[in-house]
């Protein structure tokens, strides 16, 4: 055969194989009873071919699982049915048009005594589960607490017996802010002033962790010269039930009042991220407000360039280039009203920042620069701050004497960077710079007491960054302790004058609290923790005795309760821990004080709930523990939805999810625990990709994975559990190769092996199961020999293992 013939031969062979495949596939569609006859009809003469087709059919049939319906595909949406005439006390009237989340109607509340005009909105989405419906109810509850004179209130919400969800809001009537400005020919100053009112309302909501997500002219109306924000929505929970709607139903559709000319009711106000259907964040509201401001400025061709630059910056397509918060936008506008330069325009902000980065060769700058996408402002600020700190150093020592600390901006930036992923190296460098500055200042022993105190505060903040317990700190506990010791010495040396008395006491409390946190989390030194907390308590009592009750003192009281409850927990004093935490929770304000960032309250509340939950679990009350854990998780999830870029929050949510799963597993409610753990694991896995060097994250992830596998085994979803367990075993083995004395790894390896053993036992593979159990037992023995494993843990593990061995591995 020559070459072309070989090729032909090959082609023919392939075509023949293809024919067999086609024939078998076709025959599978035939009624099995007639199959043989029809095959014989087609291929009867060719016994070899017929044989091969039959062979394929036999194997194919053998592999077919019993027919199942398969997942049902989404059905096409029906036309909207007419609304019911009444829902509860609400009589439904004229339709007012469709919104992103449903259909709106003018309605009247009437209970026989009072009538009141309201807007009733029938929501598009149904709730597929009770859990989702419960979440909707809670979100509405939270939203009903959002009170601000410039935000239309949510009055009621519910789900009818037919499963129709509805929202009831205040019925406010007035022209949109754009119409109002035109109709009254508002001056530029008045326009900006009115707009500023809107910003304040939005900022108020943001501080309470609500984002609007759909700010547009028709949602900002003016009543009695005051702007009112409509439609503050439960967007989070709603959109999670109707992703397609969020992505497509942007322009208002259906019947409704036609937008007035110039009303800008279009996609223009919607941020690019929202147009892609992503969850609403505060940055989307910044964008929409920027567009709104631009629309308003269109009437004023004489508007100065820096004001225009402000609007431009707010609506930047790149979220990193926008004002980071609505409050920052508001500040800039206020600055303009007060006759100052708007920062957005101060000499080409972006341009200057860009050049600063180019010139400043940070070792880590390049890797970090990828994050400019996400947190550009924070990082460019960091670089600028570093430069100004260096400039300050050159002009020292006069700087310190004037009271202007060169590191002020540095600290603000460091605080913000803490929440941005992959900035550890950058933060470390900035912290080193701050340390150098402070060391230099500390050498000046003759500084006035105010400055000494300020210096102590700086040292504390630096220590916080270096050794932040439970957070995203730099993991440098030794440096943190040294700075705390210096700061404490400084504070004590300051004379207790009337002017500085309270400030000095507050600083002392902060120092002691941080010292306790570092001692607890970095070195597990409970005695040092206890001593530091006692000192903090002492100072707090002194403050209280003096009658000082500021928001800050209250916040520190809560912080103390958090640390104290955590300590008691560690000491095994569960009941006391719970009492401290419950008391602090009861005393907690519903909304943060104006000066207090909403997040701090959220995090404190979450940590207190964690202690309550843990002590309930330890006291053998898993059901109560679950309730507390669930509240904590929801609280954190809500915060994380508003700040999706915050890695510290992301980590807390993941941990909270895993923590909730623990008592659920203990109660054999694996079906509820499993999705929580799956999500936790995914979240932590992603955070690991962002912070590959963070060992706490790896540990958290591994525990979540192991717990997830256990849940899957309980649910008999073996095929999903197996790869997780095997990866887990692989990881632990590798970890122990590196450090054979790591008791925790050893114990986790034992758990993973025992779980895989359970799985094998369930599958009837006793021999494998027993081999794994034997390995697990020897691992546990070795872990126990180190004496570093809590007794409770170990006993339960050993008992369970023995029971399984007795059941499956009896000779």
């Amino acid at each position, binding site marked *: 055969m020559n070459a072309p013939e070989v090729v032909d031969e090959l082609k023919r062979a392939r075509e023949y194989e293809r024919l067999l495949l086609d024939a078998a596939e076709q025959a599978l569609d035939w009624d099995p009873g007639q199959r043989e006859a029809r095959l014989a009809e087609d291929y009867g003469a060719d016994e070899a071919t017929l044989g091969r087709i039959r062979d394929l059919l036999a*194997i194919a049939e053998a592999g077919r699982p019993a027919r199942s319906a398969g997942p049902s595909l989404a059905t096409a949406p029906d036309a909207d049915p007419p609304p019911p005439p009444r829902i509860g006390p609400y009589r439904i009237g004229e339709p007012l048009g469709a919104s992103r989340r449903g259909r709106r109607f003018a309605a009247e509340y009437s209970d026989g005594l009072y009538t009141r005009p309201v807007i009733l909105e029938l929501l598009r989405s149904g709730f597929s589960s009770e859990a989702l419906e419960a979440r909707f109810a809670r979100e509405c509850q939270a939203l009903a607490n959002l009170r601000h004179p410039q935000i239309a209130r949510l009055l009621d919400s519910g789900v009818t017996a037919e499963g129709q969800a509805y929202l009831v809001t205040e019925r406010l009537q007035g022209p949109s802010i754009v119409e109002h400005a035109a109709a009254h020919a508002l001056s530029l100053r008045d326009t900006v002033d009115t707009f500023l009112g809107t910003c304040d309302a939005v900022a108020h909501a943001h501080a309470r962790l609500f984002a609007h997500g759909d700010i547009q002219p028709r949602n900002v109306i003016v009543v009695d010269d005051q702007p009112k924000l409509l439609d503050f929505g439960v967007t989070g929970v709603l959109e999670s039930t109707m992703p397609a709607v969020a992505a497509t139903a942007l322009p208002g559709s259906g019947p409704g009042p036609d937008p007035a000319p110039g009303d800008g009711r279009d996609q223009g106000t919607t941020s690019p991220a929202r147009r892609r259907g992503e969850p609403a964040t505060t940055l989307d509201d910044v964008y929409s407000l920027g567009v709104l401001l631009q629309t308003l400025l269109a009437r004023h061709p004489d508007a100065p360039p820096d004001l225009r630059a402000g609007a431009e910056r707010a609506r930047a397509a790149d979220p990193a280039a926008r004002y980071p918060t609505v409050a920052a936008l508001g500040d800039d506008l206020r600055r303009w009203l007060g006759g100052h330069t708007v920062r957005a325009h101060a000499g080409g902000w972006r341009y200057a920042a860009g050049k600063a980065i180019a010139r400043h060769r940070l070792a880590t700058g390049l890797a970090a620069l990828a994050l400019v996408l996400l947190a550009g402002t924070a990082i460019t600020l960091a670089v600028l701050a570093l430069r100004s700190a260096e400039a300050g150093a050159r002009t020292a020592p006069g700087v310190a004497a004037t009271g202007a600390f060169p590191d002020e901006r540095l600290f603000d930036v460091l605080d913000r960077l803490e929440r941005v992923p992959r900035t550890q190296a950058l933060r470390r460098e900035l912290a080193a710079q701050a340390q150098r500055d402070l060391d230099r200042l500390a050498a000046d022993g003759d500084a006035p007491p105010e400055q000494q105190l300020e210096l102590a505060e700086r040292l504390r903040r630096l220590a916080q960054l270096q050794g932040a317990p439970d957070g995203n700190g730099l993991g440098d506990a030794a440096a943190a302790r040294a700075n705390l010791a210096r700061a404490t010495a400084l504070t004590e040396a300051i004379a207790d004058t009337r002017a500085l008395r309270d400030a000095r006491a507050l600083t002392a409390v902060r120092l002691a609290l941080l010292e306790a946190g570092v001692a607890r989390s970095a070195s597990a030194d409970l005695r040092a923790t206890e001593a530091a907390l006692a000192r903090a308590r002492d100072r707090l009592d002194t403050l209280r005795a003096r009658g000082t009750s500021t928001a800050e003192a209250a916040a520190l009281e809560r912080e103390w309760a958090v640390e104290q409850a955590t300590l008691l927990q560690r000491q095994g004093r569960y009941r006391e821990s719970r009492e401290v935490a419950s008391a602090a929770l009861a005393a907690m304000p519903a909304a943060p004080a104006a000066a207090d960032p909403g997040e701090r309250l959220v995090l404190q509340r979450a940590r207190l709930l964690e202690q309550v939950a843990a002590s309930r679990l330890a006291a053998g009350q898993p059901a109560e523990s679950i309730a507390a854990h669930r509240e904590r998780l929801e609280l954190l999830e809500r915060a994380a939805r508003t700040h999706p870029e915050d890695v510290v929050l992301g980590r807390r949510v993941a941990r909270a999810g895993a923590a909730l799963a623990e008592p659920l597993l203990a109660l054999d409610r694996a079906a509820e625990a499993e999705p929580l753990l799956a999500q936790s694991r995914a979240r932590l896995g992603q955070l690991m990709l962002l912070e590959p060097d963070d060992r706490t994250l790896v540990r958290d992830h591994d525990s979540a994975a192991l717990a997830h596998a256990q849940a899957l085994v309980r649910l008999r979803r073996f095929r999903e559990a197996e790869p997780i367990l095997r990866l887990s075993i692989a990881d632990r083995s590798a970890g122990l190769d590196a450090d054979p004395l790591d008791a925790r790894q050893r114990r986790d390896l034992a758990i993973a092996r025992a779980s895989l053993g359970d799985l094998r036992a369930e599958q009837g593979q006793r021999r494998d199961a027993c081999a794994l159990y034997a390995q697990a037992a020897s691992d546990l023995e070795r872990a126990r020999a180190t004496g570093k494993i809590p007794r409770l843990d170990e006993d339960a593990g050993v008992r369970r293992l023995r029971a399984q061995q007795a059941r499956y591995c009896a000779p």
Partner: protein
Amino acid sequence: MPDTGPQQDRVQLLRAARSGDEAARRTLLGLCYTELRRLAHRLLRSDVAPHLRPSEIVHEAAQRVLDVDRMEWRERAHFLATAAAMMRQALVDEVRRYRATRQATPPVTTTMDESGEGVAPLDLEQFDAALRELQAIDAERARLVELRVFAGLTVEEAAEVLEFSPVTIRRRWDVSRAWLLRRLAAVP
């Protein structure tokens, strides 16, 4: 500033990839590839019997990189589909590398059956070779096998991606699978 490589922020990448940015998509696939090889590498050198379930490892890798569990199912199917060929390559590469460093060739096996029962495990490298043969005969069927085995798509998901009815895809899968099993002499 070069913006490729694993340093690029994932969230932004996902957004960009979803809105059709080809470079972002490639970068994400690159991340999947790296993660997949890392997982496979760890599994292979562990003391666990090397019995791979490609679709599960793939799912784990994709979950870490892409958070696939939270994607809408069609979107997930399409994304995993674009990754299937690469996933297959990553796994086979890792197995080859692993075997090259050993004296003997330990079994690195997979099964092609959804239940994991009743079908003898197949040697992954041999399976890959047989799949290449099927590719030469009928690229569409080979593609379907790739989607099912290496991207872990269900019949319904594969039907969505390949734009056939699930019933047709079910038949096609059964027959393609039968052909491969016969080719590998994995059935009595």
